[in-house]
């Protein structure tokens, strides 16, 4: 368990499955919860319990609590590519947290970046953002993430097509080409 100034970050476990399920049921959909075909997953409670019981998942899913012990969201580090040294990050927080307790997300991001860049020595951290996730987009922009582009009309949900942006941050904030300049 990691105690930050405002947040408590710990490995998620099977007892967090209900909280995690809330994010899967959330509308609009979180880009991070789409699968490789960009399709929304629809797990049930027992499947999420099973997922979080699994050692590998438990070590990549972190619950973020506030000081009174309420789970405010999850942060996930997954899809680590040991050859290309990049990983994918999921920031699962509802708009209310961005509005009222953004410091918790900031501390969760700080934690995951330390884990990715300093402990696992990754070069690049990536995440995705749907067009409706304005809070996430602004948050990433304010934390030195750069948009690597936007896949058009990649997801069909709520009766319309949605675009999907990819955001990335390099260790030391610089890609190799920028370092060489």
């Amino acid at each position, binding site marked *: 368990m990691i105690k930050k100034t405002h947040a408590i970050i710990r490995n998620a476990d099977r007892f967090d499955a209900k909280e995690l399920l809330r994010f899967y049921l959330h509308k609009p959909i979180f880009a991070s919860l789409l699968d490789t075909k*960009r*399709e929304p997953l629809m797990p049930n409670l027992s499947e999420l319990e099973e997922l979080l019981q699994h050692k590998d998942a438990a070590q990549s899913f972190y619950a973020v609590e506030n000081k009174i012990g309420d789970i405010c969201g999850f942060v996930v580090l997954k899809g680590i590519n040991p050859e290309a040294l990049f990983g994918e990050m999921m920031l699962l927080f509802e708009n209310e947290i961005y509005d009222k307790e953004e410091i918790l997300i900031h501390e969760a991001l700080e934690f995951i970046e330390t884990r990715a860049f300093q402990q696992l020595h990754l070069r690049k951290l990536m995440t995705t953002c749907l067009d409706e996730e304005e809070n996430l987009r602004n948050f990433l922009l304010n934390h030195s993430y750069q948009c690597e582009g936007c896949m058009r009309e990649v997801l069909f949900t709520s009766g319309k097509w949605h675009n999907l942006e990819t955001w990335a941050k390099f260790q030391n904030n610089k890609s190799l080409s920028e370092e060489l300049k």
Partner: protein
Amino acid sequence: MSIITKTFIRRADRDDLDTLIRWMEDEDFQYFLYGDPARSPRTIREQIIGFLSKNTGSPIPASVYFIIDSPEGPLGMISLQNISWRNRSSNLDVYIAPEHRNHLTTGINVFRALEYAFDELNLHRITAIIYSFNKPSWKLLEFLGAQRELTLKDHITRNGVWHDVYVYGLLKEEFQIWREKNTEHTREITLQKMAESMKNHLEKSP
């Protein structure tokens, strides 16, 4: 001017196993597409058998593997993978054997695969992931109307050098606009013309 070709695309089947194994062992296959150079021949074989067994001609396939064939024998492979029926999207991969690399043959058959994706499977979007050093491939996609949507900086290493990865997207309406503009050139190479030619050939054969 209309283009004429003797090449055609057909569904890959078990008889293609040896050809596919030979292609997947080609260094370029791993360099330009994917695959771990350390894979054993048995792993490669099992992987190919796996995708051939799923390549059944189902009306809602999860993926489709085409062989680019000719009277002289197979030239390459085109696949539509990760087909999402919800999002009506798919990933496109193309491999041409080194001795048959030719922009025209590749272009004609990628055009046909796109016709199959948009006109037959009714897909809405095709995605192609191409390494930045594979210029002939991304130039072809751009020629066919696809847009570079993502530039993933320093995303892969090849021989110790970091390279960007480009993600191209082509929407159905963009393909239709491209096709209308190029009707004169594509008239003789469409999927429909190809099927007619194959049918005639079949009727004439003993």
